[in-house]
């Protein structure tokens, strides 16, 4: 019974978003967004806070109406045939929509009935979902007494109920501890065997770890969409060789002039008499050995020699900042105009989350990639 929804054949168009626009008063939250979601993959919506991720998801699931444009779910327009379209979607909003005074079991029974799961299948589906998201040991407890991680799982269980083809998760790991984050990610991977998943995040490590396909959104526009690997390759000459030499800039220039493979060089002289050098080579050639020998012949000590690849993070920063073009925002990294551009309805959700979100972005980022 559970397997009945297994893999719709790959490549089938599940969601089509056409020319989507959402205005809150004079603020443009989503700006002519177009994309298609095909079955059998995990999609990641990546973007700074206030980029329009939640708004887009809310429109796709029929919670909000769009100002212009249309959303087709499995060929059904979300506005014209809402019930048929909503049947194919499971949605976990940013704040899990939980009735705190119900037990986990009661809540899931209610959600199953709401999603029109047939009466005879209801018990077995709820049991299956409880097992899938590992909620069995808390099924009799009131939701208000559960920890944040468990609440998130109950929300996830609710989204999975009815076994919709698409599961949309809005920032599924925000506010969880590292162990819970890993558990949720594993769960998402598990779910992706039978469902197409769209998740949003402003955490790169997460998207990199989980998603097959990344869509980067900034200021309501889609600025890039591709696989994580392709995005990294997106910027030409993405490999840089970083050197630190114990010499002055003029001396280093002299030494480097002997190597012809170099395309561009940036110098940065330090206070302590060393120089940082960033080299881009013709055709991405790896000239580290040659550099070593050249500097050795000149009796100039190399303190560092490193080949650095551009990461998805750099791509993300570059793309989202090109959109804004604001030097102030380049310094502050991901915080691109969050507070001035956030529409009222969303600030209700996001402001309480804000402190934990920003620590996640700045400090947590590295921690997570280490895990």
């Amino acid at each position, binding site marked *: 019974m559970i397997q009945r929804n297994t893999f719709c054949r790959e490549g089938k168009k599940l969601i089509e978003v056409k020319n989507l626009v959402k205005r809150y008063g004079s603020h443009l939250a989503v700006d002519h967004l177009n994309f298609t979601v095909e079955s059998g993959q995990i999609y990641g919506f990546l973007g700074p806070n206030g980029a329009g991720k939640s708004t887009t998801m809310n429109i796709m699931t029929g*919670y909000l109406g769009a100002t212009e444009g249309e959303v087709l779910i499995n060929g059904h327009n979300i506005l014209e045939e809402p019930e048929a379209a*909503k*049947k194919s979607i499971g949605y976990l909003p940013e704040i899990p*929509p939980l*009735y*705190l005074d*119900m037990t986990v079991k009661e809540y899931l029974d209610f959600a199953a*009935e709401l999603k*029109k799961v047939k009466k005879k299948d209801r018990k077995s589906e709820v049991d299956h979902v409880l097992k899938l998201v590992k909620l069995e040991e808390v099924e009799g407890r009131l939701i208000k007494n559960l920890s944040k991680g468990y609440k998130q799982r109950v929300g996830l269980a609710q989204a999975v109920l009815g076994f919709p083809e698409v599961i949309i998760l809005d920032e599924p790991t925000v506010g969880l501890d590292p162990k819970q984050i890993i558990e949720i990610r594993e769960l998402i991977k598990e779910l992706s065997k039978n469902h197409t998943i769209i998740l949003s995040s402003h955490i790169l490590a997460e998207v990199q770890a989980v998603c097959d396909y990344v869509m980067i959104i900034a200021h309501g526009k889609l600025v890039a969409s591709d696989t994580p690997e392709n995005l990294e390759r997106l910027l030409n000459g993405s490999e840089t060789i970083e050197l630190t030499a114990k010499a002055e800039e003029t001396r280093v220039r002299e030494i480097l002039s002997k190597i012809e493979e170099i395309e561009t060089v940036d110098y940065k002289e330090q206070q302590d008499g060393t120089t940082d050098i960033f080299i881009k080579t013709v055709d991405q050639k790896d000239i580290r050995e040659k550099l070593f020998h050249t500097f050795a012949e000149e009796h100039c000590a190399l303190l560092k020699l490193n080949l650095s690849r551009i990461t998805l993070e750099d791509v993300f920063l570059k793309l989202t900042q090109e959109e804004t073009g604001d030097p102030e925002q380049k310094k502050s990294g991901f915080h691109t105009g969050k507070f001035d551009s956030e529409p009222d309805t969303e600030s209700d959700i996001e402001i309480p989350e804000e402190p934990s979100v920003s620590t996640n972005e700045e400090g947590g980022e590295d921690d997570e990639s280490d895990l």
Partner: protein
Amino acid sequence: MKAIYKRELKSYFDSMIGYVFIAFLVAITGIYFMVYNLNMGYPYFSYALNSILFIMLVAVPVLTMKCFAEEKKSRTDQLLLTAPVSLSQIVLGKYFAMVTVFAVPCAIYAVFPLIIESQGEAHIGIDYMAILAFFLLGCVYIAIGMFLSALTESQIIAAISTFGVLLVLYLWEGLVDFLPTSAMGGLMGILAILTVLVIGIYQMTKNWVIAAGVEVLGAAAAIGTYFAKSSLFDNLLPDLFGKFILTEPFTNIAFTHIVDISGMILYFSLIFLCVFLTVQTIQKRRWS
């Protein structure tokens, strides 16, 4: 709809609100029943029922305040609105759950006339009709409370505004007496109502040509009629607003024992209107 109905009903009895509402209404009714019917020996239970109409002003907001305000606050409305259920089913599910809670005290009231009968003369038919009218009136109050709850995120604002609206409706009969009865007053009243309507039209269409056109034509028609036959405007305002005395269909049964079908139709139309407005309010929120 069934899922929402069951969940709502269960939540009323999980959270005490349902029990408190029922106990409150039945206890106060018991006091009036004891005084009027048992002690003074008045054989109509409807008399006691009439006295607790004002208790409804307090009880109904308690029942209705949370229905949509709380959902919006805790964002559980996202679950309902993204589920494959239509909006009118969501609203009706919640409405019927509240009506079911209110039906419990009304069912208990059905016992009181039987107690009167066991003590001597009783008027079972009239009393049962009065209980039915009281129930329908309560359903109207609940629909109004539900609509006001859908307008706000705060349960307190929902409760207070419901109380305010119900209080005005309760005092309506007395207020109508203060309206001017002269033809001139009638004309002024009509012009004032017309202006309010025109402001509404302008808000909806944002087209001042249409709004001004309606105002000018309406005013011309009203003033023309006034000069042609001013007697039409005599007593117009009290008559017009008198139609909306909500308690009248109930008190007609309670005191004059007249069952007024048009009053019942008024109740049903008001319920329909409030349910419709609730659906529209929630629908509108998605677009703003």
